[in-house]
């Protein structure tokens, strides 16, 4: 039996040949499809390539009109690239490694309009949902600064028209509650002291003792042998009278202390009145903004919004960058889709990383339109070096820099630079931004949303100096804005602040960025705070003094009657108890010359 089937070999060669020809013929389409599919899933919106041409022998890829749709706004492109061309290194490709030695990105533009929607088709949308990590659904940057608002000052004018009595309607005053409870305290004290008076020696008891003492004094024995027993009786009676006197004196002192406390607590009413005024003002919605609030609404909010946007962009980007890890470390297995398996990666002992982009040069499509709120560049070019899947193996950080100027001399100089260093276990990234003489001119171009804002920086010249460092997950950054010639547009709801902000001089605004990528925190400080604080205090005092005084007077007039009644109640109790104690104490005084002197224990004066 023949073992070999030569016709089979011909069939095999034909099959393999057909597969090869088919692949070569449709290679461009296959690469285009793979890039579009994978990039769309990564971005969360359509990524479309106008035309892709590859040269097998030159290992060169030319892409024309690459559009990356904005997932938030499907009718706009986040990025549009007119032309992108790169060469692949041949030797690393044999080892399934993609090494791009030089890439040229020309005609780069962003936020461009689209003709069709860039939303993902439902099939890819489902795939994307399945891939979403919990962290992507989670926390956003700190909102405190972004949400800062100014109180509605127009409420102040309305309140001024209303009478204080009307404003106080339905408000529970602490001072009134205190005065309502006060008589109960007086009654309780009265009850206690009346009981105490009953327990103390009565007038009758004291008079009886005094009479007994007087009688004993008159009955002095003539017989000397009876004298010791006589003195013993006299001393005992005298001690009893002295004890009574002491008890009454102590009671008198304690009563006086309690009365003083009661009187002092009545003075608390004055403090409670002030608290009531503050409570009423707060309940009426009259809040005094801090100078930091003013700066925050004026500029800080907008800058914080941009910082949060940048942090969000960085967070999204960091999902695709290689995490810093020690050499030779293997990746942990992840849950795998059925029938697809999982690719286990092994240490790369020699040669190139799996992916390396050695140098990419960018140039931006010049934009001649001056649009509000959008950075339009007249000139912008830059480069990216050393973007790789294995930074440890590559041994250098990824560096990028962009330089340019804005349309219509809006900013003389714009520079963005940074580095992503993921070579160590803890990645260290840094981004620096410098904008010189950024002109803000919004007069006459206020959009409806801006018009609703109480304060707006209508014009100014800004120097922006920002830096953001990310070490692992920890953020450490600072944005410093030097604001020159600021002109503030004041909305109707904050018209009261017009004078205060009219002559606002140059100031600095500083935003400190801290926390971590999942929960960033932004703190704001400004050199204008001091000036604005004193101005704001004067303004508020002037505007609100009349209203506050009116409310205080009404509260005082309501309280005065109760206060007087309570004072009378305390005086009455004082008079009653103190009078009784004094009269009892008066009776305990021994007749002149009968009080024992110190050092004469056992001998009555006058009995020498």
């Amino acid at each position: 039996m023949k073992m070999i089937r030569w016709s089979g070999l011909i069939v095999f060669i034909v099959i393999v040949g057909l597969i090869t020809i088919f692949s070569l013929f449709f290679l461009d389409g296959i690469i285009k499809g793979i890039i579009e599919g994978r990039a769309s899933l990564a971005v969360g919106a359509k990524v479309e390539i106008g035309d892709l041409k590859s040269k097998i022998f030159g290992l060169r890829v030319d892409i024309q009109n690459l559009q990356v749709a904005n997932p938030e706004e499907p009718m706009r492109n986040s990025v549009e690239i007119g032309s992108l061309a790169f060469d692949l290194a041949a030797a690393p490709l044999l080892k399934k490694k993609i090494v791009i030695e030089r890439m040229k990105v020309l005609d780069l533009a962003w936020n461009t309009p689209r003709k069709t929607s860039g939303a993902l088709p439902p099939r890819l949308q489902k795939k994307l949902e399945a891939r979403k990590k919990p962290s992507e659904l989670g926390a956003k940057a700190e909102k405190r600064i972004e949400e800062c608002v100014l109180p509605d000052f127009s409420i102040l004018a309305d309140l001024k028209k209303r009478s204080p009595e009307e404003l106080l309607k339905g408000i529970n005053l602490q001072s009134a509650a205190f005065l309502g409870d006060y008589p109960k305290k007086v009654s309780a004290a009265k009850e206690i002291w009346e009981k105490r008076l009953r327990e103390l020696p009565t007038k009758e008891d004291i008079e009886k003792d005094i009479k007994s003492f007087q009688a004993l004094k008159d009955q002095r024995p003539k017989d000397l042998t009876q004298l010791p027993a006589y003195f013993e009786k006299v001393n005992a009676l005298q001690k009893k009278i002295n004890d009574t006197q002491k008890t009454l004196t102590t009671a008198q002192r304690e009563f006086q202390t309690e009365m003083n406390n009661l009187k002092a607590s009545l003075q608390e009413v004055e403090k409670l009145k002030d608290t009531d005024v503050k409570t009423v003002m707060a309940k009426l919605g009259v809040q005094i903004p801090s100078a930091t609030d003013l700066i925050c609404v004026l500029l800080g909010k907008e800058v914080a919004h941009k910082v949060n946007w940048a942090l969000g962009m960085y967070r999204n980007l960091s999902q695709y960058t290689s995490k810093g890890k020690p050499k030779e470390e293997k990746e942990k297995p992840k849950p795998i889709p059925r029938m697809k398996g999982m690719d286990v990666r092994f240490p790369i002992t020699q040669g190139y990383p799996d992916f390396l982009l050695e140098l990419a040069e960018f140039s931006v499509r010049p934009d001649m339109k001056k649009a509000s709120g959008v950075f339009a560049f007249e000139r912008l070019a830059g480069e990216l070096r050393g973007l790789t899947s294995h930074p440890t193996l590559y041994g250098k950080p990824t560096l990028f820099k962009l330089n340019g100027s804005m349309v219509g001399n809006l900013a003389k100089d714009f520079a963005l630079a940074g580095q992503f260093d993921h070579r160590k276990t803890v990645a260290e990234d840094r981004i620096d931004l410098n904008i010189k003489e950024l002109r803000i001119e919004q007069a006459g171009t206020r959009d409806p949303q801006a018009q609703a804002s109480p304060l707006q920086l209508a014009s100014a010249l800004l120097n922006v100096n920002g830096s953001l460092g990310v070490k692992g997950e920890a953020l450490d950054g600072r944005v410093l804005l030097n604001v020159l010639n600021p002109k503030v547009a004041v909305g109707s709801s904050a018209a009261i602040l017009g004078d205060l902000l009219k002559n606002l001089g140059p100031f600095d605004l500083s935003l400190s960025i801290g926390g971590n990528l999942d929960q960033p925190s932004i703190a704001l400080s400004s050199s204008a705070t001091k000036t604005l604080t004193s101005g704001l205090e004067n303004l508020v005092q002037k505007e609100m003094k009349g209203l506050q005084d009116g409310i205080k007077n009404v509260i005082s007039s309501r309280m005065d009657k109760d206060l007087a009644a309570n004072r009378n109640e305390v005086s009455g109790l004082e008079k009653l108890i103190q009078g009784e104690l004094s009269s009892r104490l008066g009776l305990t005084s021994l007749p002149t010359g009968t009080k024992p002197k110190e050092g004469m224990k056992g001998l009555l004066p006058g009995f020498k």
Partner: protein
Amino acid sequence: MIQPIISLIRMMHSETDPRQISLGFALGMVPGLTPLTSPHNLLALLVILFFRVNIGAAILSWGVFKVLAYALDPLFHQIGLFLLTRVGFLQTLWTALYNAPLLPYTGFNNTVVMGSLIFSLLAFYPVFWGGKFMVLKYRETLMERFNRLKIVQVFRASKIYKWYSSYSKLRG
């Protein structure tokens, strides 16, 4: 598709060496169990076409084992993961293969490719031997009964069968 299967039935009923049928069945198992686009399947195809093995048996086996592969996929993943990550002495070999030219394209570092390939290689001889045994047993015991089945006799008397027989004779 029908032609190789009819050819298989004819082979079962002919004097063809049972080893040719069982070898075709065992070789068809490899692309059946492993992902079709894996490069090693080109080698399996070359062997099936170049050596005188039964192509019908290979195609039937590919179909049968493709269904089985779906059920066995988690097992293949576990086997692949074990071999690729937990066998210490193999790590040097995998690392060397991973860094060698062209070999990364074989997809050996994929858990399902590795697991299913190892499984199919281990199952190759038992399937070959089992297939040969079954062909022999079939010819000894079941073939006669099969030929006596009414449906087979009706089919053999049908025009389609006669047309196919004359077509086969013409093809040689």
